[in-house]
């Protein structure tokens, strides 16, 4: 091994040791600075992705049109394209109106945010939103939609934040079940093979006997999530050796999230 390689190896070892010595706070700060540095690329990428998806949807409708209307193909193409564009606008208006309504009637102070990127890693379920410290977002703030709980913020940079989804095994939420005194801890599954991952509600009593469809809400224990946020509905219940466990379907369809709200407090 040459002298250059040995020196390189020593420098590499020193830098590696430096990084490995990072604690939680330093890691979070470092991650926030990297996210901040790459934020323009993420937002540009997100915009590009939306445009590509929009073009793809337009092409699909043209295909359908061709099959359905042979003779009036040209006219119908124009009409379908116009309709498609209007539908996009209508969808956008409805979505924003819906969000605005929820924000107004909610008992919480909400900051609206848009999803910029979805999880790129295999073992963590996260999304990135276009709000950060500049919008008074902090670590461990609940993230919701009008349908229910989405997750909580973890790494927060100036203009961008990472949200740990409720379907992640590390996102633990104290929950209570409607119509019963049962309380437990909800967490996601480490590995989910499908688009609709389930949640585990653990530490229930063996006698809980939860029925499919019963709703689980945040109980407010733990301090991160305020009480009363809809988490999901019971799908099945089983008795284990020491406790009862229920499987829940998340209240929010996390695979198609577009807009969310960060809860900054109560009104």
């Amino acid at each position, binding site marked *: *091994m*040459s002298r*250059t*390689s040995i*020196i*390189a*190896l020593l420098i*590499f070892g020193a*830098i*590696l040791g*430096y*990084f*490995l010595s*990072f*604690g*939680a*706070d330093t*890691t*979070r700060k*470092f*991650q926030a600075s*990297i*996210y901040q540095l*790459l934020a323009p*690329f*993420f937002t540009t*990428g*997100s915009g*590009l*992705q939306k445009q590509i998806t929009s073009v793809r949807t337009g092409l699909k409708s043209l295909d359908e049109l061709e099959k359905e209307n042979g003779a009036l193909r040209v006219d119908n193409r124009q009409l379908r394209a116009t309709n498609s564009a209007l539908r996009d606008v209508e969808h956008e208006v409805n979505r924003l109106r819906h969000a605005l309504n929820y924000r107004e009637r909610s008992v919480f102070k909400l900051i609206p945010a848009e999803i910029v*990127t*979805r999880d*790129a*890693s*295999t*073992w*963590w379920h*996260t999304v*990135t939103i276009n709000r950060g410290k500049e919008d008074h977002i902090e670590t*461990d703030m609940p993230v919701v939609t009008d349908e229910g709980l989405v997750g909580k913020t*973890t*790494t927060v940079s100036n203009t961008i934040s*990472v949200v*740990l989804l409720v379907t*992640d*095994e*590390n996102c633990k939420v104290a929950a209570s079940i409607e119509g019963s005194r049962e309380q437990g801890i909800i967490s996601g599954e*480490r*590995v*989910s*093979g*499908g*688009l609709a991952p389930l949640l585990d509600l653990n530490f229930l009593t063996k006698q809980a006997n939860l029925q499919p469809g019963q709703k689980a809400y945040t109980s407010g224990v733990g301090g991160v999530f305020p009480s009363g946020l809809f988490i999901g509905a019971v799908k099945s219940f089983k008795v284990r050796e020491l406790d009862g466990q229920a499987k829940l379907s998340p209240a929010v369809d996390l695979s198609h999230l577009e807009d969310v709200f960060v809860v900054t407090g109560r009104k």
Partner: protein
Amino acid sequence: MIFFFVLLVLLVIAQISEFFIPPLDWMYHAHIYIAPVLVFYGAMTLPFPLMLAMALFAGVLLDALTVQVIGSKVEISLGSSILIYAVLAGIMHGLRPLFIRGRWEVHCVLTGICTSAIILAQYLMITFRRGTFFFTREVWWQIGGPGLMAMLMAPVIFWILNWMARVTRYPYLPERTFE
């Protein structure tokens, strides 16, 4: 040297692109990883010190963008990916002579295996932290799937990078050294 910086820029682009590539539903939600393919190509074409620098850069980027800090707990220490990348890139670097002779097939297969090895290492680390060790079909696919995809992408990416190396006049094919 220009080629090294080109690789670094491509690495950043690949890492960002991974955020916008949806997981493959038909492969049990397996993700597509492009960055490791670039790192392993760098391992075979760059000299040892630059290979280490690239592993360092890729590891920091991967950890900074994926590892989660929950409360006061860091699940996987920042820097662990640097170590994993360096070890695997070191192995690939050892097979450099074969690559330079134009025998790419071994490296394409190894790129896939090493990509899966990164994800497996991450899984083992989080399992160690969280407890409850299990290997279901989904876990295997989520570990093996990205490796399989990397294996399939590798020849194309290697070919493009090879072309870029020629364009930037990177002298990484010193056949005389090995013959």
